């Protein structure tokens, strides 16, 4: 089976920022994403998780499979959106079978 190289961008961010980030993804013209809600974690801003009732301390993950170019753009502009905020972005290589789907 022939496969095509894409990037998998993963964004871990605070719940209230999910909508703005999805808005950015849309604006960049990326064709899809997947969202995992209700995560907990720890980083430079300390422990986070749904320990309060507001959701302000909960984490979520957004996964995006896209081309190398789009991935770089998303990483750059995503990091800008997260300036001064809690959250991380990283990317890795993946192979897909349907090149045109992503």
């Amino acid at each position, binding site marked *: 089976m022939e496969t095509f190289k894409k990037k998998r961008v993963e964004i871990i961010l*605070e*719940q*209230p*920022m999910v*909508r*703005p980030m999805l*808005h*950015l993804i849309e604006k960049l013209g990326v064709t899809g994403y997947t969202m995992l809600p*209700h995560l907990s974690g720890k980083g430079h801003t*300390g*422990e986070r998780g*749904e*320990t*309060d*009732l*507001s*959701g*302000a*301390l909960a984490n979520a993950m957004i996964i995006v499979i896209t081309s190398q170019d789009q991935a770089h753009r998303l990483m750059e502009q995503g990091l800008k959106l997260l*300036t*001064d*905020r809690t959250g991380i972005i990283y990317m890795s290589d993946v192979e897909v079978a349907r090149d045109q789907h992503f």
Partner: protein
Amino acid sequence: MGDVISVAMGNLLTPMVLFFALGFIAAQLRSDLEIPEAISKGLAIYLMASIGFQGGVKLSHAGFGLNVALSLLAAVALSFLLPFLAYFLLRATTLMKRETAAAVAAHYGSISVVTFVTATEFLNSQGIPFEGHLVAMMALMETPAIVSGLLLARRGASKDGGGLAGDNPQMSGEVLREIFVNGSVVLLVGGFLIGWTTGDRGMDAVGAFMLDPFKGVLCLFLLEMGLVASRRLRASKLGGGMVLAFGLYMPLVGALAGLCMAWLLGLSVGGATLLAVLGASASYIAVPAAMRLAVPKADPGVYVTLALAITFPFNVVIGIPVYLAAATWLFG
């Protein structure tokens, strides 16, 4: 005086306060007791829809008049103004950063539904009546404080440049949504209007769900609040005694403001107590998300901890009977 103390002790030995204490102690003992997040959100939705509905049914008895309209305006004003006072106190007595101080201030202008609800049940158990439109006042006090918080944060930002996310139009839209159609505002106002419209007929139909189990559900929710407050307290570093002190004296300041307002509005003793509670309590549901969006540099560790782990327990355990005593002394 002896009376106040016996009433306060009576408060301490209600199932509600005891379940709160149980949760608090369990978390301090590092128990793995946990209420699933969906359940606590479900209980919160029940409490908000129900207290709104109950208030609306009460107003359907009393009718809507000028004094009610004035009270609603006053509530908005109180929520809007309190943050300026809180911000001033914070900046004068602590080393807190501008953004964090602004965010904390917004929380104290807003209100805590569960504190209010606990106070209504306390009044009910003492047989003290209160006006139904207090519930509508509560609903309207949820979010004006967010605006004040933003103004305060922006004022800081113009001086030291940045830290505010309001320029991004997408973000502004999100913040406006939080202010006007925040889920808890919608539930409280909506439940209130439904109670008002359907009145006693509505209460007959759904009272077995909306009214009878209310106090028991509140116990379970306070158990969860105890767990949450206690875990937050353990995880937090508030950084300084004056910050912690703010969490204890600011409710008194807010309660005083509430009592003054109650005097202006001519509320009953029960109503005055509840308005004091609204002034005294701090939001931990509606405001934090708005602050995360709009004032990213503000430290959520500080504002969530103060509102949830210091001021909330203080009000539930000590504040409520104290405010009742003050209202009785002033207006009784």
